[in-house]
């Protein structure tokens, strides 16, 4: 394919973002679930504040259940996975049936997990499928513009979530470095001012003090999507 449509680049970018968000949230929820067994209660109120989503939950157990599996909750993990699927399903000829099948399986397992007796165990399989998708798509997406646009989605979401949640901050600089490389290989246009700010902050991001500016810059970095 000589030139991919903007609409497809947009979907690839958001596919990357939603997959990454699902992976990070499952990781966090597995910790939260474990913590709820015998540790201090997971502070879901702060989690919602940091994520800037409404706290519509009645307690930590309600939060764990609904945040993971409530399809009506637009911020839930299952909704994020379905958004990933919505983007992927219209990209079959770009990402391949083989790669798409891993997302389909992740969706199928997530739906089964919602009804299952050991949902956390099954969530591991969702994670496995999404990592399998990442690996398979890296191989099957031949078009470099497409491949790197998807990867930019991963990086943007990862930085966004790290900054918002203070999660895996030790990986933040590495992710900036990855994004810096990936954005050279995507046709998506960057906002020059935001890019300069990000590059300036990358060596020492200090997300506690620079949260607002980091989020503004990363969210608005690509002007086309």
């Amino acid at each position, binding site marked *: 394919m000589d030139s991919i449509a903007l609409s497809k680049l947009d979907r690839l970018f958001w596919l990357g973002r939603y997959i990454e968000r699902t992976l990070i949230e499952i990781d966090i929820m597995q910790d939260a679930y474990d913590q709820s067994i015998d540790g201090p209660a997971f502070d879901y109120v702060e989690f919602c504040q940091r994520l800037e989503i409404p706290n519509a939950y009645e307690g930590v157990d309600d939060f764990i259940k609904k945040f993971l599996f409530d399809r009506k909750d637009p911020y839930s993990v299952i909704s994020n996975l379905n958004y990933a699927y919505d983007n992927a*399903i219209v990209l079959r*000829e770009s990402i391949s049936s083989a790669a798409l099948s891993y997302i389909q399986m992740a969706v199928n397992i997530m739906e089964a997990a919602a009804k299952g007796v050991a949902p956390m165990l099954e969530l591991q399989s969702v994670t496995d499928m999404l990592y399998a998708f990442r690996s398979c798509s890296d191989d099957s997406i031949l078009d470099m513009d497409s491949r790197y646009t998807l990867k930019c989605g991963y990086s943007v979401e990862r930085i966004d979530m790290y900054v918002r949640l203070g999660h895996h901050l030790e990986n933040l600089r590495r992710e900036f470095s990855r994004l810096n490389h990936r954005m050279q290989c995507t046709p998506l246009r960057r906002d020059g001012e935001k890019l300069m700010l990000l590059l300036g902050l990358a060596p020492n991001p200090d997300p506690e003090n620079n949260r607002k500016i980091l989020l503004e810059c990363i969210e608005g970095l690509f002007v086309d999507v």
Partner: protein
Amino acid sequence: MESLVSHTARINDQLARYGVKFGIYKNGVFNERLFPFDAIARVISADEWRGLERGLIQRVDALNAFLKDVYGPQEIIHDGVVPEDFVLSSPGYLASCIGLMPPKGIYSHISGIDLVQSREGEWFVLEDNLRVPSGASYPLIARALCRRCSPDTYRQNDIVDNRGYGSMLREVVDNVNCGGINVIFTPGRYNAAYFEHSFLAEQTGAVLAEAGDLYVENEYVYYRGFEKDQRVGAIYRRISDEYLDPTTFLPESVIGIPNVMSAYRAGNVAIINAPGNGAADDKGIYYFVPKMVEYYLGEKALLQNAPTYLPFYPDDLAYVMDNFERLVIKDTAEAGGYGVVFASNMDSEAREELRQKVLTNPRRWIAQEIVDFTELPVHLAEGDVLRKADLRVFVLTGHETSVWPSGLTRYSREAGNAIVNSSQGGGFKDTWILSH
């Protein structure tokens, strides 16, 4: 085949993995359903297939000749073989296509011909689908999965490989390409056959495009690329005529390509299948297809229609009224298994109501003798059962007309039910053509 059939559940799991689904709207809500697969294949011997193949090629060549004629000199009408009024009153006959010759004169590039086999082994054509026939992708992907599950089945039986459909389709599209890329144009993710659209794009290397991805400028069609736009030479559209171009057909269509008909008229893009093909696959026109074969090709039709009556003709109307209870009545305005009723299954009040409808508007209806078509075994957990099944065969017209050596065998959900459409809850089987 026993080894293969033992893997039925696994094959269905694999089909779920690949998202082999069809969409259905119920009460205005879109739902996707898995399309149940039965691993007991329909088997057609080499000899039987050769006969079918010849008949199918003949039939599709005649239908293409008919379309070329009715949008051109209309000789078949002038010669009194098909009544003028009958052609012109067909809802699929589009005035905007009169005098319009598609690239290389091909109208129906991909024809889906629905066949049934009687208990005595005779094949009958039930329906010609020349607009947007769907279904090839299902046996195509199922075969690939079945081969993985039970390679010995394919090693030990001489089954013609059906996995070349993508390249056959690509040749058909390339044959009429007017210069530029090939595009599969889909109404979008919420179309009933979206799986097929995206799967065939992958199989043929075409670009999958939706409304907004394509535009027309100076009578050329372009694909809106991010860095540069690309000219489009052929559009395999998976959208009905009426939604294709809001400047020519339904103005309220938001899923079409404005002005694509002007590019088509100028000969700058091929549309596959050609707009206006509904004139030839109308349930009423079906009656005339054997006559078309004789008229255009000078040959006797090799494939027979199910015995059909057109209430449009007074003699046929009288026969239909006299034998109403034992006929199948079909509404020519409906598709997808809808509008097909077995008069014998209706209560007397409903039957009388339908009789009146046929009397009031005879052109809208056809009546057929019930073909007691064969039942095929279907594997269920509790044991094998018999279900009515039809066969959709795909005939492709490029440099020449050829038949894909496979087909979509659909079976009904309930015992005795003759409605096999997926939208009515049926499942599907692979169709094996034996090589000798």
